[in-house]
């Protein structure tokens, strides 16, 4: 029996994986600061002297699209949108340093500044903590300005600075919690020129109309590959019929 059927099935599986990644992107079309996954299909062939007549295909997530999402103004003093390719350093669940574009910040009851995922945001020396009950604003350079509500006439005090990093020239990839990490471990240095826009949020960079097109094309490709499996089946039946000895 010919191996064509296996090649075609690998294509079907790849199309289903592709559809799943598109579904995951679409589900996150309204997650603040989300970066959509990019899918890449690679032909898999064995290196060797033989003729490359068959290439199985394998589809996988190659990385994330770092295109900027649209920025909307919210008027909330703790919402920040990062400009350019800047990213915000946060403390991941395992205690390591991860990077995110998600800037819907809030102050926890203990005074720790967290982002919308509930991860503590890092400053010059670890997580940023503000005195409980103080009025917090974020400056465009990431400065954390704190005002004591008891003395509203005093100018705000600069307490710390959010760690903003530039990802230019570094390879970053998503970890399993969806945060970005430096590939192979390590941390990025503070970028003095990174800026953010206070009182605004960057939306997800998933574009709904793009999703529709990707979805339909993945669906149709799947259907074609299904057809190919069917064709392989018919060919196989044909050759089996030829070999049959009629009594």
């Amino acid at each position, binding site marked *: 029996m010919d191996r064509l059927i296996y090649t075609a099935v690998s294509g079907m599986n790849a199309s289903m994986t592709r559809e799943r990644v598109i579904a*995951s992107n679409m589900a996150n079309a*309204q997650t603040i600061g989300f970066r959509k996954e990019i899918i890449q299909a690679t032909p898999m062939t064995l290196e060797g002297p033989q003729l490359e007549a068959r290439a199985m295909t394998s589809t996988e997530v190659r990385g994330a699209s770092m295109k900027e999402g649209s920025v909307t103004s919210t008027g909330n003093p703790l919402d920040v949108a990062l400009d350019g390719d800047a990213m915000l350093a946060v403390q991941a669940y395992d205690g390591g340093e991860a990077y995110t574009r998600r800037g819907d910040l809030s102050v926890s009851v203990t005074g720790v500044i967290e982002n919308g995922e509930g991860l503590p945001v890092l400053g010059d020396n670890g997580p940023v903590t503000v005195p409980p009950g103080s009025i917090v604003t974020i400056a465009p350079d990431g400065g954390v300005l704190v005002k004591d509500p008891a003395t509203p006439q005093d100018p705000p005090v600069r307490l710390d600075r959010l760690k903003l990093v530039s990802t230019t020239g570094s390879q970053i990839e998503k970890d399993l919690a*969806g945060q970005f990490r430096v590939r192979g471990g390590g941390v990025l240095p503070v970028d003095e020129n990174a800026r953010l826009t206070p009182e605004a949020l960057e939306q997800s960079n998933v574009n709904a109309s793009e999703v529709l097109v990707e979805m339909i094309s993945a669906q149709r490709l799947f259907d074609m590959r299904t057809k190919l499996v*069917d064709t392989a089946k018919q060919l196989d039946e044909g050759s089996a019929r030829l070999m049959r000895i009629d009594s």
Partner: protein
Amino acid sequence: MPSSALQVARTGLEAQDQRMRVIANNLANVGTTAFKRDRANFATLAYQDARVAGADSSTETTYATGLNLGTGVAIQSTTRMETQGSLETTGNNLDLALDGDGYFQVQLPGGQLGYTRAGNFTRSSEGQLVTSQGYALQPSITVPDNATSITISTDGTVSAQIAGQSDPTQLGQITVASFTNPGGLQASSDNFMLETAASGPAQIGVPGENGRGQIRQGMLEASNVNIVEELVDMIETQRAYEINSKMISAVDQMLQNANQTL
């Protein structure tokens, strides 16, 4: 895992559905005194590692990246947007609005304290200041029957003119509770909030001091829901819901096609 794409699309549908509920609740409360709108927060669900990065692809090469497949989205929480609603004059001298931070304290049945910014108070049959549900304001203020006019200053001092006396009599002091993290208060029914571990304990003080808001007599704070903003969010949610449901039918058709063809 042929149905996993269906499951991922379903998480999207559910999250949009919940966001729609939040928006509907905001719109329903557009006329509720001192209501604060909620914002739904989406969070990416954990990724599945279909293959560990660095696993051998052959004896000589390793895969550069893991195959991280997203598993969808969930509504993680809602954030109450604590912006001030506009103050509207009602002319009723027992209507109180807070201009700035803080909450009135109210004795709920069962002895628990409730916190509210809705200051539409009335007098009970015993002369106590109570909310429209009949819950007493704390600290308790009692207005005698023969009081003619009640004045509540911006710092919460309550005084009244008693018939037959030339000078006004002071009846009590209204205090305001503030919280380290007001977003952590648990919303309960009838405009009341309850203290939680996340909000921290109530810090009681005089209105207008330490960043607490001042009291404005004869006014009420309107809801801070902006109808136009909610409608835009509603349309956005509706469209996302539609595309997510299209996603489900697309995967369904793929499976159907495979079933029929093979």
